[in-house]
């Protein structure tokens, strides 16, 4: 009988070490991370506006569609 993989209590195979979020590995990588963070800040107003679309009101949920 072969041993089962990933049973309860066993750890699933982890992702390789190099793909875990960590401190930058080089100055070049630090620069990319900095640009990414700046980009996140720049697009925040767009993201905020887009998220407002997910806020639903009872008026909207009660909108009735019956045209024919």
């Amino acid at each position, binding site marked *: 009988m072969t041993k089962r993989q990933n049973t309860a209590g066993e750890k699933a195979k982890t992702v390789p070490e190099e793909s875990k979020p960590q401190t930058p590995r080089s100055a070049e990588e630090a620069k990319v991370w900095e640009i990414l963070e700046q980009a996140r800040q720049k697009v925040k107003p767009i993201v905020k*506006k*887009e998220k407002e679309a997910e806020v639903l009101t009872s008026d*909207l949920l009660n909108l009735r569609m019956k045209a024919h």
Partner: protein
Amino acid sequence: MLDARGHDYPAQEIIVLPFPPNLSELFPTPRGLVETDWPPTQITYLGAYVTHLGCKTLVVETHYVDRDYISDVALFYSRSLRAYPNFCQRVHFFREVFDQTRWRTMTDELNGGGNRTGQEFLQGTYLGFSVVRPLPGSPIGRTVLKTVARRTQSGDLREFGAVREYLVHLGGFELAVDGLAFQQQDQGVSACATTALWSAMHAVARKEALAIPTPADITQAASRYVLASGRSLPSEGLNIQQICEATRAAGLEPLVMRSLSLEQDRAQLLSYVTSGFAPVLAIQTMQGMGHAVCAVGVKLGTPQPQSDPELHFRDNASAVSVVYIHDDRLGPYASADLYGYTQAPNRIRTALRIRWPRTDNEMEHAILDAIIVPVPAKVRLTVTRMRELGLALAETTGEIFSQFNRTVGLNTRYFKGIDYRRLSLDFGLSDDGLYTLLCELALSRYVGVVEISVPDGPLFDVLLDATETRANPAALACIRRRLLPSGAERELGAIANRLGARLIV
């Protein structure tokens, strides 16, 4: 002696007809005072649409049992005084000329099983079918037709992402047609929202091997717990809550978004439609009447340049100029231009200008109120959440690769994990990269894909776990695509590292 009613089995005929100059000639005018104009718009539209597809011949099955209609009969029409038949007729449309004699010959050639000439001829010329219900005022039942050409005369691209294959059995032949089912509301069992949701379910339920609910199922499920007005039958329309109830009853989940801006609505429509999910659009006519249609495809022109001088990318959703809709007052794949409508001094709404096929005749203007998308339960990550990451990645890429001169673009969509793996065979990945993607990376059933591209094609994808909610990081991998500049793997690796994702090159 009493009549022996209903003891005999029905007979069936298959009749081949030349396509008439006016399709409505085939539809008898109902008896009595017809409340609306005859022929109804849906028949005129259907005739115009199949004429545009090049229809030359009709084949009519005189006795066709339609699952959706018979379900309507069971729920509603069987209790009417008038004895509505429980069967329909089905009309098939073909692009080539042939007659009854040729039909007979093709059928005879099937004898023995070896001759596929007729099968190949019919399949090559098949345009789809329309079920004709025995309902005097609303005859157009389940209708599946081919879409118009993918490329427009002006070079724009049409993406009918929500269509799927339907197999059709006609005589001894099995034919296939790619389309999405449409039908006219009958105002007995179904109203506009019922048929729009029914079409949307046709697109998505099959992906999950779920039974597609009939309009009668939808009406019953929608009015089980929430009844906005006095009665469920005859149907007096549905509200968004009821659409959500009916969606959940079918084993799917409803995503509901308010319409806030044209840019955002374009992005939502593009992402969901190209992923094979058909959104229901809650619209309001300029007369203030609520209506629902089903979005099936979009037309894409050129993405618009970035209007914010601080940003270094453009949103590929800005290329969406038209949404193709199933509008049950009109017909399948009706073209609706998207535009910004100034409703109040500081309020610009998304509006649709719904047109007839291949003409500039305007049918109607309407305001978009909400987008409702029935999705599989395992799609938990919304397009909005994907775009939150995608916008930042597109801006980062545009900043790093200044040689692209602000033409870096953003797309978001969903794939089934197995479909994405299949597509990746053409990404030009290294053997190791492809092996990792195919064999070593665990994928969710659906993956969200943020695609960062330039006008000639994709630079890289970020794969997201679509089973995640907004609370947790969900990046699975950053995957190199063909147009990523050589040497840029380091920057992509840095992004992957920051996202906690695998780098696949």
